[in-house]
């Protein structure tokens, strides 16, 4: 029996066939607040005044920072926005119903964030082809990936869509001695670069191969990634407490987790 609503069925079918969904941010004010906080934190780090247009400032960050200082800037921005008490609720609000439809309504959320800032033509900030499920992550997780600027072509990330993934998964052992670079080189015509304008969000299963490459566009990429999973689904090495925290425990679960049967009976 499948009692999902029609819109949930469509969403589930799309997610299962492609492995990702791109949708409008559900709370645009929350997204704008995150973008502004990131831009203001970057400006403060660089000793610049708060920008009037945070999006344009982020796009043009390559004019203000060198590739050598980029990681310090990135860490300063992460520390600043993660320290904001409203940040986690705002990030979740950007895709709450989408995540609840795809994952469930009793959730664990990654405690930290990933922030990617990729300057044009910077060859040092690359994330080679990978699947998170090949390392410490559980395949029960999804990633909410939120660009803070328009991303397109090489300014975005690539993903190997589900319909093409099986074929490449099968031939992976043939690349054991040649490395992941060779695998990506041969696979590249099949990967999809995701064009996502600012204001939209991406949810994808990190079981699919994905990554980024040198940003050959004129402006910088800014994107945040945070993982979500069903609270009561299997974890891998990114564990509850260290990496994830519960964000929506329902009352029935609270009762069940603390329930004790009456005791003291004897034969």
């Amino acid at each position, binding site marked *: 029996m499948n009692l999902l609503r029609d819109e949930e069925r469509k969403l589930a079918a799309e997610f299962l066939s492609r492995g990702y969904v791109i949708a409008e941010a559900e709370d645009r004010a929350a997204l704008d607040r995150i973008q502004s906080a990131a831009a203001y934190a970057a400006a403060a780090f660089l000793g610049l005044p708060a920008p009037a247009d945070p999006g344009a400032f982020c796009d043009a960050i390559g004019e203000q920072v060198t590739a050598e200082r980029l990681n310090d800037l990135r860490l300063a921005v992460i520390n600043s926005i993660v320290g904001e008490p409203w940040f986690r609720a705002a990030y979740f609000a950007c895709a709450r119903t989408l995540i609840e439809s795809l994952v469930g309504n009793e959730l*664990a959320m990654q*405690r930290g964030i990933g922030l990617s800032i990729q300057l044009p033509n910077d060859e040092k900030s690359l994330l080679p082809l990978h699947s998170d*499920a090949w390392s410490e992550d*559980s*395949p*029960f997780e999804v990633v909410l990936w939120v660009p803070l600027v328009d991303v397109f072509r090489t300014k975005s990330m690539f993903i190997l869509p589900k319909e093409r993934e099986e074929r490449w998964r099968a031939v992976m052992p043939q690349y054991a001695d040649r490395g992941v670079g060779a695998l990506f080189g041969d696979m590249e015509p099949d990967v999809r670069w995701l064009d996502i304008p600012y204001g939209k969000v991406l949810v994808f299963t990190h079981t699919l191969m994905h990554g980024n490459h040198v940003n050959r566009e004129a402006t910088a990429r800014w994107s945040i990634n945070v993982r979500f999973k069903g*609270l*009561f*689904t*299997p*974890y*891998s090495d990114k*564990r*509850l*407490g*260290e990496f994830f*925290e*519960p964000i929506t*425990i329902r009352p029935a*679960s*609270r009762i*069940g*987790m*603390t329930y004790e049967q009456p005791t003291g009976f004897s034969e």
Partner: protein
Amino acid sequence: MGAASQQQSASRFGYRGYVASRAVRGTNFPQHVQNLVVRDYAARHGLHYLLSVTEYAMPSCYLMLNALLDELPRLEGTVFFSLFMLPRAKARRLEIFERVLARGCELHAALENVALRRRDDIAALEDVLQVAFTLPLLPLAGRYEKDENSREERARDPFWSVLERSL
């Protein structure tokens, strides 16, 4: 700050480390690694680290923890290697939290990067512990294993067999 509080603060000093001799969440971390994690946490949070006490290996033994709790009047707080070194029984944990707070101390957990500073912090810590203690009751015992042997075990798990047949 009143004179009594100032006197109390002056007589307290540092955060005592607390590391384990038994497995923490199923993993035996070498004690020197636990101490590295605790010291790093203390340094990152500006806490003056005091040499760790080491809990004994016997299951459910908290002799060293109790000694540490007795020392609280002379400390600013404690840094556990992990939150999961607390007793499994909720009533015992709550008693420890109350003792720490009543002494004006803080309890930090380095591995999880969390801290008990005020009564409001208890709920979030308890949420993590309560859910984690429930995970062994779930399919795959709440743990997704990636090696071949574990996958075979998964295939033999009656829950997954039934579920896969039903799809």
